[in-house]
């Protein structure tokens, strides 16, 4: 009965699914890389990604897709819905489908956590990709996703840090501690806010780090006592500034896109981004004022990675692996590092790349409106366990959005 209901519910979305001959796990495991590349030729890979940024969409459409077609005879089909990946996987599972309509997933922490709960990811596969040898696995913000070991079930794609972005024509000096930020907010009522979505909650998690006794306070599995202690400190800070936030802290932008919109319109003087390259990118695109500048609180800001995963039931696992390997190539990583293209931090250990890549990466990484990645790395804080995000979202909503 439940299979029938779910099948009916997703009938529309699955109506156009192709049915290529399935490649069994054992057959895929027995293949070497050239055989995987051969099996990938002529295939179409359905890539579920966040399509909310025209710059990222352009990178995929204008750089990646033609490259895949030219070099591997793979057709890339992009579908939006990154936030709905887990829901779609559940719908397919409930429908009893033997094959997924998705082949490649843009995921990170919370989605990885959900998909691992659902045992919906193919893997381990990362070590089979030739470009895996260049990945900076020694970086804990790459090797662990929201404190969860990656264990070969997702491949890092980009590495980024949370930044505050201020309009320097209106904000000087930059308040770089929670106390200084509170003073600025009191002195400029209605000109600061944060969203209640992923980025805003990441800002609150950075404040938890700022109020923690040590950078390791939130490391490891979810710790209820540590969470409650640090949550209360952050909420005390928020209550103290609430009346002087945008809309008196009674309403918050729903997501970072709304926050950016308020900033670009001049309604507030701060926004934030979980991509430290976004400031230069948005200025280049004319979406942020030239006076925008990104910076980190000296008490530390979160750094994390976004990843690529393959659904366990994808019929195109071989082709998806080839696409991921291509996305890890120095050429693809270099292209998306350029501020004018995307400004997304690389996950490669550039020093291990053959010449002339190290020099080229160093040159492309230069930014004008944000500190260097090396400077930011010194105050980077790791993501806490995913359960903390779930609790923080519920508690913040109850304490501030609904009250």
């Amino acid at each position, binding site marked *: 009965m*439940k299979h029938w*209901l779910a099948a*009916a519910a997703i009938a529309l979305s699955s109506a156009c699914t192709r049915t290529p001959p399935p490649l069994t796990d054992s057959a895929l495991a027995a293949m070497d890389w050239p055989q995987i590349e051969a099996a990938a030729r002529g295939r179409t890979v359905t890539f579920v990604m966040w399509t909310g940024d025209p710059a990222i969409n352009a990178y995929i459409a204008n750089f990646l897709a033609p490259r895949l077609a030219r070099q591997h005879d793979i057709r890339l089909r992009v579908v939006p819905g990154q936030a709905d990946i887990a*829901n779609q996987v559940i719908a397919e599972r409930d429908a009893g489908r033997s094959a997924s309509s998705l082949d490649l997933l843009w995921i990170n922490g919370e989605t990885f956590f959900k998909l691992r709960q659902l045992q919906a990811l193919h893997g381990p596969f990362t070590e089979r990709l030739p470009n895996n040898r260049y990945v900076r696995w020694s970086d804990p913000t790459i090797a662990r996703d929201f404190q969860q070991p990656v264990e070969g079930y997702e491949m890092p794609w980009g590495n980024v840090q949370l930044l505050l972005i201020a309009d320097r024509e209106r904000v000087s000096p930059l308040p770089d501690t929670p106390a200084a930020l509170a003073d600025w907010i009191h002195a400029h009522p209605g000109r600061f806010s944060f969203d209640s979505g992923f980025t805003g909650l990441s800002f609150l998690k950075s404040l938890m780090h700022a109020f923690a006794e040590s950078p390791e306070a939130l490391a490891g599995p979810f710790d209820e006592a540590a969470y409650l202690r640090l949550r209360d400190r952050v909420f005390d800070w928020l209550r103290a500034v609430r009346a002087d936030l945008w809309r008196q802290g009674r*309403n918050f932008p729903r997501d970072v896109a709304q926050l950016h919109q*308020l900033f670009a319109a001049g*309604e507030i003087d701060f926004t934030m981004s979980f991509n430290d390259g976004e400031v230069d990118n948005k200025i280049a695109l004319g979406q942020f004022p030239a006076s925008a500048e990104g910076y980190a609180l000296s008490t530390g800001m979160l750094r994390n990675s976004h990843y690529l995963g393959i659904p366990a039931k994808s019929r195109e696992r071989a082709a998806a692996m080839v696409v991921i390997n291509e996305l890890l190539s120095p050429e693809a990583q270099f292209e998306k590092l350029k501020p004018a293209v995307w400004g997304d931090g690389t996950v490669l250990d550039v020093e291990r790349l053959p010449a002339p890549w190290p020099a080229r990466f160093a040159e492309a990484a230069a930014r004008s409106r944000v500190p260097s990645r090396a400077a930011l790395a010194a105050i980077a804080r790791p993501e806490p366990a995913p359960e903390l995000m779930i609790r923080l979202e519920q508690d913040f909503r109850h304490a501030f959005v609904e009250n």
Partner: protein
Amino acid sequence: MPSSKTERLLLSLFALATGGVVLLALAVAAAGSVGLIGGVDTAFTCAHWRAILSAPTLWLSLAYSAAIAVLSLLPSVALALLIVLAAGARLRRAPLDALLVLPLAFPGVVAALVAVQVLGGAGWLSRFAHAAGLVAGPEQFPALVHDRLGIGVVITHSLMVTPFFVLLIARLSILERLDDLAALGRSLGATSAQALWSIRVPVLLRGLSPVAAVYGAALLASFEVPLLIGAQHPAMIAVEIDRHLRPLDLATRGQGYAMACVYLLLLSTAWWWLSRRTAKF
């Protein structure tokens, strides 16, 4: 003339495409609400129902949605009546006829984005107010979008709905031959005010009621406009259901299905009650 067999087939297809879809949606929502589909684990549970029935969120959202729907609908109908009664046949002449149709072509997303540009803290109205020396900055301009009172949502809905009712009322006036009826009333001794309130308005309202009820239901379930320019709390019911169906914690997803069940059942009951009343009338 279609045969009775063809007629039955067409009616069955229509029933399947309307009632069938609703019943299917209800069945899916019911299964999800008790944990049979849609969660991490699939085991029967009443926890989702207990959670949504005991918390104020669902009831607040339903009441808020009803209030926004009524507040959007009533002024729109009243304004449309006023426009038709005041403008009369001039509405059928260019460029008014084209201008009236224009807002109907705007999807909700576009209307919401325009509302931000006009009503937002840094929008046109705010800039005019600043230029006129009424406010010192965006933070002093009253909250007309993303506001808990739903002012921006009501204004945007009304601007989208009013042209539709203007067209409908203008058409009804012709079909019901209101000018002739009013003239007849006056020839029998009615004053202009009596012709208006005892002839024109009652006839129009009787013709409008079923359409207004359907439009009210559509406004009750409005999604794009409140999502883009409404407050997060309280939220209209479609936005609230959507939020509950995309939780960070997958274990609570059944609450979204339970909310959808309650909403579908309430709407179906209201529809059944209204159809009975209309039939009696």
